[in-house]
């Protein structure tokens, strides 16, 4: 089990089909005012090893879509298929405060069925991967916001899933910490070759990280536009190319939001 990361980095023991396939997915919720359509006919594939960001204003249903892909909820119509159970990271770190950083990761390993003897070593490898070597015995409240999200990332990676879902994981962090975590995430994504579906409302963040940016319209959420981001990694959030594409995407996003003011 300790070699799973290396195996993944070889690139493709598992190249059959996309990491996630979302086909004509719609979702509506019952409200006092009747059925409200939140997601309308979304079709989207995430290729193995691909990094996709979902971008949209409030009410575009991006978190709903992520919940559907994570299997925490069912679509009203359409189909979602993933290879195995995806790992999910939240905006809040969601680490269990009754466990140390290391034991949080070990719980994920245990629930996945990793043998007891291998858990400790594997947890320490994962902490090393997020550059938190000394944090094994630390309690959650003893860690800073950025460190907590790195432990949460390590715990998500402990699931050894082919698909990592991230729901605005850096939104609550300060700008400098967020920059650092962007770097970490890009490095880890390239090292592990995991597929990432990353939800955000921050255009620059989306362009900084992704190979493909998908813009959702709001109420109901539909795929409004897609961009392939060919800027070579490692990128920085202040790079010209990142800024230029961000301007273009922001224009589109504003257009989507304006449409709602008109009726």
């Amino acid at each position, binding site marked *: 089990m300790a070699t799973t990361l290396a195996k993944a980095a070889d690139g493709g023991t598992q190249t059959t089909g996309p990491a996630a396939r979302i086909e004509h997915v719609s979702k509506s919720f019952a409200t006092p005012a009747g059925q409200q359509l939140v997601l309308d006919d979304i079709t989207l594939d995430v290729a193995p090893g691909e990094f996709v960001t979902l971008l949209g204003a409030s009410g575009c249903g991006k978190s709903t879509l992520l919940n559907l892909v*994570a299997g*925490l909820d069912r679509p009203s119509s359409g189909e979602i298929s993933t290879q195995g*159970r*995806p*790992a*999910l990271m*939240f905006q*809040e770190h*969601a680490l*269990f*405060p*009754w*466990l140390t950083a290391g034991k949080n990761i070990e*719980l*994920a390993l*245990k*629930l*996945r069925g990793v043998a007891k003897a291998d858990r400790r070593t594997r947890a320490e490898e994962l902490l090393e991967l997020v*550059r*938190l070597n000394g944090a094994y015995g630390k*309690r*959650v*409240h*003893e*860690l*800073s*916001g*950025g*460190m907590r999200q790195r432990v949460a990332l390590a*715990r998500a990676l402990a*699931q050894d899933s082919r698909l990592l879902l991230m729901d605005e994981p850096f939104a609550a962090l300060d700008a*400098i*910490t967020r*920059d*650092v975590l962007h*770097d*970490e995430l890009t490095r880890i994504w390239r090292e592990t070759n995991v597929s990432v579906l990353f939800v955000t409302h921050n255009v620059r963040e989306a362009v900084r990280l992704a190979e493909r940016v998908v813009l959702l319209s709001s109420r109901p959420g539909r795929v409004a536009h897609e961009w392939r981001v060919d800027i070579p990694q*490692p990128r*920085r959030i*202040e*790079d*010209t190319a990142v*800024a*230029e594409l961000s*301007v273009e995407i922001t224009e589109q996003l504003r257009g989507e939001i304006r449409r709602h003011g008109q009726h």
Partner: protein
Amino acid sequence: MASTETTTVTEGAGPAAVKDGGRHDMSGLEAGLDALETVQTTRIPLRQTLVQKVLPPLTAVLLVLVVWQGLVSFKIVDDPSKLPSPSAVWDEVSDAWLQGTLLDYIWTSVSRGLLGFLLALAIGTPLGLVVARVRFIRSAIGPILSGLQSLPSVAWVPPAVIWLGLDNKMMYAVILLGAVPSIANGLVSGVDQVPPLFLRAGRTLGATGLRHTWHIVLPAALPGYLAGLKQGWAFSWRSLMAAEIIASSPDLGIGLGQLLENGRNASSMSMVFLAIFLILIVGIAIDLLIFSPLERRVLRSRGLLVRS
């Protein structure tokens, strides 16, 4: 866009070199952030603990003793059958100690109380869990369980005597009826207060069914459960005293409740005071020795205990 201009300049100087320098900066930056933002925890020195935690309650006790002695010395209450002097109560303590009965009184009650509490724990915990997790059972007996909590457990003494007779079984029944609802309710509210985020996180990690309960729900509910245990002990102790006072019988041995009742029958106010003090002290001691440290440990390890 000021940043656009800056980037253009650095790119002219050679993007690759800048990128490499940037990488280096970032990991240095990360180490700096980690060092800056890590919470330092230090232990409070012993002297400070003594001054802040031990001194105030000692002062309060001393003040009560001074006022009490004053009431007797200045003959404000001049009737030993109403208010014995502190020295008379102290004589009662040393007599009981010299006769070797003091520890017997205490142990008779404490052993009953703790055994009853452990039984209540063994029944209340699974009951609370089932009520918290199974919707039908919750709507069926949840309200009754909360209602039972406000029923004074002394009300159970007469029926318990009729059903079980004057023996230890009756005592345990009264303790159980007093403590089980508190313990179960504590667990129910502990489970209710588990942040939904933990439940979702647990489910995405693949915890389902019993494993979800064991690894996620129970540890997350522990603070509420402990609060319930603490209250459960208080209820056990109170119920036991009520049972011992009302249902005293020579076969049962003399516990603190019987001691109090004996003092009343002998019109010995100093014995009554002795019994009341012992009941109070045992209640405080069990809390200080068992429940408070347990609760503090759990809260501290989760960063929920704020030091002022």
